[in-house]
């Protein structure tokens, strides 16, 4: 790993300010993708801005007919949340099958969504469930958030604060894992809401998440 300047921030505003000041800054959430990449010297940010200290970004709460999950909520916390389990059990199950237990204790929903790995699990849920990605600047519909392989609608100094998932009638997620990395070779999230059934596929194209309405 190349050296960098570590910045621990405790508020979203401080995080944004640190990013604006940095020569080539990088927000780090759980770091489960970023740190291995940096260890291999395949990324060399000047500043690592650790969002781990921002309490506002953590936690899960019911918000009317939706469940709101703070960006820095770990996969383990989503999986174990009784609110998520009762509102959208498929989402809890999805979170509980990302990586392995130790990775789930560090990796976060915000980090996963912002990274938008073409084989990641969460993006499929965000699109299929019609979730809204809330940032420090705006609210972005799940459909419009993911713009390409590893690309999102996020701007350089924009960060996800929470993701709001509307309750759904029925939903399920299944994935076929790569036997080595255990990333999804293909994952399918199906969600039913009223007359609409949405199916979103992750993995398969190695490029982007494909959705369709049935």
């Amino acid at each position, binding site marked *: *790993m190349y*050296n960098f300047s570590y910045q*621990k921030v405790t508020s979203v505003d401080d995080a944004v300010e640190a990013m604006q000041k940095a020569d080539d800054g990088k927000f780090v959430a759980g*770091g489960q993708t970023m*740190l291995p990449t940096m260890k291999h010297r395949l990324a060399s940010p000047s500043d690592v801005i650790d969002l781990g200290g921002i309490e506002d970004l953590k936690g899960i709460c019911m918000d009317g007919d939706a469940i709101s999950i703070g960006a820095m909520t770990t996969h383990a916390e989503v999986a174990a949340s009784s609110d998520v389990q009762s509102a959208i059990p498929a989402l809890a199950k999805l979170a509980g099958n990302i990586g392995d237990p130790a*990775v789930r204790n560090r990796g976060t929903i915000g980090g996963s969504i912002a990274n938008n790995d073409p084989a990641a699990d969460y993006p499929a849920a965000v699109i299929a469930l019609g979730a809204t990605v809330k940032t420090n600047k705006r609210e972005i519909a799940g459909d419009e958030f993911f713009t390409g392989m590893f690309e999102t609608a996020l701007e350089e100094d924009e960060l996800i604060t929470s993701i709001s998932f509307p309750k759904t009638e029925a939903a399920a997620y299944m994935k076929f894992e790569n036997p080595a990395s255990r990333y999804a070779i293909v994952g399918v999230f199906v969600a039913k809401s009223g007359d609409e059934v949405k199916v979103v596929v992750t993995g398969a194209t190695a490029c982007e998440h494909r959705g369709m309405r049935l």
Partner: protein
Amino acid sequence: MLTVSMKVNEQAVSGEVEDRTLLVEFLRENLRLTGTHVGCDTSQCGACVVHVDGASVKSCTMLAVQADGCDVTTIEGLTNGAELHPMQQAFKDNHGLQCGFCTPGMVMSAIDIVNRNGSGVDEATVRKELEGNICRCTGYHNIVKAVQAGAKNMGG
């Protein structure tokens, strides 16, 4: 350089680290707690698993500075005498280790599995939950037996 302070195995410790120093490097090099091992560089083998604030983490994928103020437990902290932690004892009784290299991470993960799944954790759950720990020696058979036996021992 940064100064980090944390509790490791119930002892308050502090040390100078670079911003980029990993938690596992701090444990192994600064504190010379060499029971925590590094077996890969992509966060998969699990030889480096420790507990941070009671939860298992891969200490090769966390900065030392991120553990500042935390409560860290390593394999060395499970017992400070001749008597082994029930999970360590179960690994010994069930021959759940051979070369010993993956063992500290396995034991730390095993305790975490029992903490979350209880003393009656079944074989399928143990196997699934060990997916972040790779062992080349044992074929897992005896590790799984050990985790289940250790779970019973821990449950009292």
